[in-house]
């Protein structure tokens, strides 16, 4: 059990965190999360626009417009 983890742990140490590849992984993760944020931002804007244009067509005065 202990030897098993040993073989797992040491190569990771040398390969992943020693050689700077973890920087690449961290960078990619950051880019993904920022991309997700931008995408959500655009989605929200678009939904709000659609909502406004839909409200103009409905007769009922802005029901459920809060929240």
């Amino acid at each position, binding site marked *: *059990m*202990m*030897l098993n*983890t*040993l073989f*797992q*742990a*040491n190569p*990771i*140490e040398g390969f*992943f*965190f020693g050689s700077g590849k*973890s*920087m690449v*992984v*961290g*960078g990619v*993760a*950051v880019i993904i*999360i*920022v991309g*997700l*944020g931008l995408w*959500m*931002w655009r*989605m*929200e804007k678009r*939904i*709000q626009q*659609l*909502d406004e244009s*839909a*409200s103009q*067509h*409905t007769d009922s005065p802005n*029901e*459920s417009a*809060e*929240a």
Partner: protein
Amino acid sequence: MHMIQRSWKIGGIALLAYVFWTTFTVPLGPGLLELRNLERAAVVDGLDRKVAAYELIGLGTHWATRPEDLSVVLRKKENLTSLPVVEVIDDTHAVIGLAIPDTLPSRSWDVLINHPVDGTLFLQNGLFLNGVSVDETATWPALTLTEFPADLPHHFPFQPRIFETIRNLMLHVPMWFTMFLLMGIAFVASIRQLSQTSGGSSLFDLRAEASVQVGMVFGVLGLLTGSLWARYTWGAWWVDDPQLNGALVTVLVYAGYLILRGSVEDERLKARLSAVYNLFAFVILMILLMVLPRFTESLHPGKGGNPGFNSYDLDSSLRAVFYPAVLGWMLLGTWMYRIRLQATQLNQKLHRLNDQ
């Protein structure tokens, strides 16, 4: 008002960017992996007999710098004895001579090392000796051991068996916190839905639906990250454990909630029935994840039974990332919930337009 709305969303993303970057780039601190019997004898200076040679293996240690300052100590309660270092092979490997008396107070020993760079490191029950005579009254002259911290830049603490996967703490735990927050929002929305006088709108029902949907995403992510972690530290994708069972049942219960919503046509009846079921679900969630695990033994950290790691010994390096992670994921979850809610409301509005 507009500024605030904008800033918490940007703040959440910025926090998560910081969290991801530090999670993957902060190095892991040094630690001890194993004290292994080399099955050969070693000659130790100043000792006329040969002793068994053991290999001490570290992870991320720096023994090659100032090897003469590496000291190894065995400990059992108050009994301490120093072991001679025969040879430092490289940063993470050293040969130790097992120069100990024939009669020992115990068979299993904790191994400690002191090194100016790595500080004091500790390997619980690192040495187990077969074929020695045990006399529990045997004592040794007390040796003073001064423990000191590592002289290294910012790093995550080394935990046995967890090693580098300690980074998963920043992903796995906040998922559950965020799910709790979202299910809490749904719970409050359901209460407000039920306490409306009859003929009220189904606004709160939509809120509950949106937050359960987003909460389910976080719950499933929590299960997945937890499963990966369990595979690494416990050796199986799934273990029979109160905490894990509770998590799975919670996800199933909320899946039931979403199915219930799908099977009722009438809007008002749907709002009422699903609110009732949601209150049931949240109480079950509380029982399963907050109450039940405290009464049964568990492998899961923070609940006892696991020697390696528990959530109460988060050290400052972990906290500096963990708290922002929790806050960041919660902000992201809330934002997702709001977008989801707006989308459902828009959908409803468009349906109504279509009907006209």
